[in-house]
């Protein structure tokens, strides 16, 4: 089966439907699937539920899907970088399910590993625990969290081979592996598709079994907070 597609629109063809659940990789603007997000905007698919740690910024990343009102609900841990998000949320146009960051990552990982639920200490005694089953282990309270099973995963990696084996780069890895694992279909965008055999099998971060379609493209890779030090401080 050929996994390499010519562009993001072609790679999403036949996968999209209104009301679908999408898991997206990325942390802040680092390692986000920016080409696939642009293609989602062009597709016009709507009423999306998106599991993603953040929701981009105004006008970039998942923020573009807010501008076009294609998102119905976000499952996120932090959405503070986005004025349009706040506006839609406060006006009731957008649903928000806050997840502690580690709980969100584990929900994706669990979904991808066929685990429908797990117990965690995170959020015990807070609003996050409301309505969730509490169970004691060793005298301590844990809450039940459910695995995420998405219709589609969209992720960004550094390199892929044509079988979908992926390598990520530095902290751009973040949510991409667990997001990739939890979808029925995973589309990955990469900076470079390299020949089969050119990646050391011991150095593959995510095996190609999780990746169904691949595109290569130029990425803007915007920096959210540019912080530097002066040379004389060295």
């Amino acid at each position, binding site marked *: 089966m050929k996994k390499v597609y010519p562009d993001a629109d072609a790679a999403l063809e036949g996968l999209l439907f209104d009301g679908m659940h999408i898991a997206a990789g990325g942390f802040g603007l680092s390692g986000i699937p920016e080409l696939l997000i642009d293609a989602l905007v062009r597709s016009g698919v709507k009423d999306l539920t998106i599991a993603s740690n953040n929701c981009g910024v105004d006008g970039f990343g998942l923020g573009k899907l807010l501008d076009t009102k294609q998102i119905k609900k976000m499952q996120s841990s932090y*959405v503070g970088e986005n004025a349009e998000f706040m506006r839609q949320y406060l006006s009731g146009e957008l649903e928000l399910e806050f997840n502690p960051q580690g709980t969100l990552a584990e929900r994706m990982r669990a979904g991808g590993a066929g685990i429908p639920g797990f117990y965690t200490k995170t959020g015990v005694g807070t609003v996050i625990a409301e309505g969730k089953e509490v169970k004691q282990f060793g005298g301590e309270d844990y809450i039940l969290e459910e695995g995420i099973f998405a219709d589609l995963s969209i992720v960004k990696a550094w390199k892929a081979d044509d079988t979908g084996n992926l390598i990520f780069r530095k*902290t751009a890895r973040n949510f991409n592996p667990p997001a990739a694992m939890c979808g029925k279909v995973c589309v990955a965008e990469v900076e470079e598709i390299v020949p089969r055999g050119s990646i050391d099998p011991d150095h593959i971060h995510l095996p190609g079994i999780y990746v169904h379609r691949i595109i290569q493209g130029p990425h803007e890779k915007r920096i959210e907070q540019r912080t530097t030090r002066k040379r004389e401080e060295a």
Partner: protein
Amino acid sequence: MAGWDRNQMAARAAEELEDGMYVNLGIGIPTLVANYVGDKDITLQSENGMLGMGPFPYEGEEDPDLINAGKQTITELSRTSYFDSATSFGMIRGGKIAAAILGAMEVAENGDLANWMIPGKLIKGMGGAMDLVAGVGRVVVVMDHTNKHGESKVLKECTLPLTGRGVVDRIITNLGVLDVVPGGLKIVELADGVTEEEFRAATEATLV
């Protein structure tokens, strides 16, 4: 009443760290703690997927693929390792991180912490804070003792939505250091120029 400034609070918080520790530093004053670890062998975790966080890059060397949990550009060190978010919070939840030093809006005398939400005003999200306070070995809060209206942030009970229940071990403020103990808070240390009377007057929580 003098007390400590931001840098002095960070320097005092750095004394909490011991050689060999893996540590997570929150945003704000906690970030400054890294400037005061001296010769101690401390490995900083960034919960977006990195152990061994280095300083900010030189101008022109910023890498969009290398950021910290505050989304700031940073650098790597010779000891650095990278991993995905599920692995990162696995080490947090699994108790592998020795300590977290975090900011706070309110702390209560039973160790309750509120630092993520002001209903109706600030709705940004908890990020990794709930996971950190539930999982790490020791939670140290660094914050101003009072808010901008002069009201105590060290309370009998938190008024804001909690980040964690009974999770704080030690509080370092501009006025001194407190430990969470059975029955309330115990004064461990007073900041420079602060009397115990002044400290008590600025504190709503029960001091034992």
